[in-house]
């Protein structure tokens, strides 16, 4: 009899795991709480480092699902263990599975928690996700008034490496995302001045450093310093204060748009499911795997696996790799 695997989360991690398990002959049920597949990537315009359209990746994954039963608009409310199997309750229905994969991903750091930056208060303070939506809809950023911006500031590490908001960890991908977006702004509006305020630039992946050099060659200015506060000034522009730590001097400037590079936060819903399944969370609030180095997909509960950004910040490549590894571990478990 074909064994069934329940995958919770229809983002990149869930889709890739489903694809792999499907090809291994398992019956796969994919639960996604929103009405569309692709997670955060589906809301992104283009991807680093090669500016490929995000929709291509999402399409590629969704079109290769084979017999996966995808249940969109379906919120998993609880997962219980019963006679060696799992009962997944979702939208008032129960589903049975032999193994469960949590691929619930992350949520964007709520930028309004950094009250001093003014997100939700000042109309020209936006997040990196908002900027991607502008690129999708209009191909370029615009001020809330509709005017073309002539100066934009990107603020790195918003909700990352920040103990004040209980996010002491690095979200890994925001630096390169800022560099990518800064280049895109310069390409869309060549006369626009673009500034990146950073702590460190963590260009860890292939092609990332090249992207950084490209940004510099296109005139993006990098200032090592963290924003202290922003204020709205006349015309809806934004005054920002920071310290240029390389020049050892405080800095104040006015810009048309401030883009907050929001980090990855643990999904609040995931912690409830984790509690149902007896899983522990790591110090940052993501799900802890059995062994960080040698067994990153298995959990302390037999038959429950984790993959993707629900274990911590990840880029797409690493997420896809993790998903393939998870599928193999699930297969090994169900083949015993």
């Amino acid at each position, binding site marked *: 009899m074909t064994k069934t695997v329940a995958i919770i989360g229809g983002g990149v991690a869930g889709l890739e795991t489903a694809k792999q398990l499907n090809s291994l002959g398992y019956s796969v049920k994919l639960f996604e709480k929103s009405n569309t597949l692709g997670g955060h990537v589906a809301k992104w315009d283009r991807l680093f480092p090669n500016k490929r359209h995000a929709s291509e990746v999402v399409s590629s994954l969704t079109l290769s699902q084979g017999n996966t039963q995808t249940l969109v608009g379906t919120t998993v409310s609880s997962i219980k263990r019963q006679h060696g199997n799992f009962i997944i309750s979702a939208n008032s229905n129960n589903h049975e599975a032999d193994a469960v994969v949590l691929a619930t991903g992350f949520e964007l750091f709520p930028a*309004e928690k950094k*009250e001093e930056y003014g997100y*939700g208060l*000042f109309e020209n303070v936006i997040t990196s996700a908002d900027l991607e939506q502008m690129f999708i809809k209009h191909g370029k950023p615009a001020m809330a008034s509709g005017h073309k911006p002539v100066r934009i500031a990107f603020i790195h590490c918003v909700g990352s490496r920040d103990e004040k908001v209980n996010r002491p960890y690095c979200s890994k991908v925001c630096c390169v995302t800022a560099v990518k977006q800064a280049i895109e702004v310069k390409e869309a509006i060549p006369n626009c001045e673009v500034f990146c305020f950073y702590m460190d630039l963590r260009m860890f992946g292939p092609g990332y450093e090249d992207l950084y050099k490209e940004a510099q060659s296109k005139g993006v200015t990098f200032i090592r310093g963290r924003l202290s506060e922003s*204020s*709205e000034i006349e015309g809806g522009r934004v005054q920002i204060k920071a310290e240029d730590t390389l020049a050892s001097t405080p800095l104040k400037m006015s810009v048309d748009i401030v883009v907050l590079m929001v980090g990855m936060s643990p999904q609040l819903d995931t912690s409830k499911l984790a509690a149902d399944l007896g899983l522990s969370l790591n110090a940052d609030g993501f799900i802890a795997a059995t062994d960080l180095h040698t067994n990153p997909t298995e959990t302390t509960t037999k038959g429950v696996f984790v993959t993707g950004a629900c274990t911590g910040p990840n880029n797409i490549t690493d997420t896809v790799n993790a998903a393939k590894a998870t599928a193999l571990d699930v297969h090994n478990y169900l083949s015993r």
Partner: protein
Amino acid sequence: MKLEGKRKIWNEYQKEIADDKYFYVRSCIRQAVFPGSENTYLRIMRDVLKKDVHESAHHTTCTGIGYHTEVVPFETIQTVVARNFALMREAGYENYTPSCVTSFGIYTEVLDTWHHFPEERKRTAEYLKKATQRDFQEPGNMAHTSDIIYKFRHQIAEKSKYKLINKATGLPLKVVDHIGCHYAKMFPAKGIGGAEHPHVLAGLIEAFGGEVIDYPERRHCCGFGFRQYFIKANRGYSIAASKKKFESMEPYQPDLILTNCPGCNFFMDRWQYALAEMEGKTYDTKGNGIPVLAYEELAGLMLGFDPWEMGLQMHQVGIETLMDKIGIPYNLNEKYKGAKGEDLGVPESPRNINFYK
């Protein structure tokens, strides 16, 4: 500015404030610089709101200024705080209401220290016992006096004779608020509206019908900043900080600056005079300066209290321009008379800022 964003923040930062039976502790500098302001607070609380406010003649300074200038050690300030708490309990009260924002910050810091480091509390109790034979308990509730006025702002507004409305135009007067740094910047959860966008004064301005004006340097220090002012060599930083704020608010042409901290009230007022003398410039368009009031001074004015009885003639920037805009009558002949009608003498007129006498 998206007001709904501000309202969301304001809703997140609310705190419990006692209804009645307050133990009141005064500011040590306020009575020297604006001697009528604390009396105005007590008048509003006792005569208008009919609240029980108790003062002890034995209470002391919190020693906050000494603490922040590293003259008073932390052990000492904790013991002084504990003694004031002991006086409150001995008088049969548990709701502690300091008049000074620096003190409010000190009390908050000490209570937080005792919460996280109980050994500090134990040691303080031993010191207090040894020094005074007293025992103490933490307050049941603690709120700054601007919190108290905020709590009763609608009641006060209902009883008020005046509104923050320009009599000639019918439009709301433009008011900028300045919150003392020690009110919430150290402990945002202890301030109404938090640290970044406090509501404690904005709520009062709204209740009186005024328009709250945000300006870029709203959060910047008033210029008091203890080490800027108490170290004489640093006083240039003090006036430079104030100047930065005035320049930032100038394009919005506010009718009033509203403060909740004795130091801020003083420096926002006095440095306008000093800057006018130094540079021949005021930050309004008519050479009057921008009037500066504390929360209870504003409340008293709206309630129809006599401005000179409240000591508003002690402000360096005349508040007559504000009263003229609202339509509050005043008698200049009474401006420099004492409580018993005695002549206090008229101060020398400044050169570059208009002076009503």
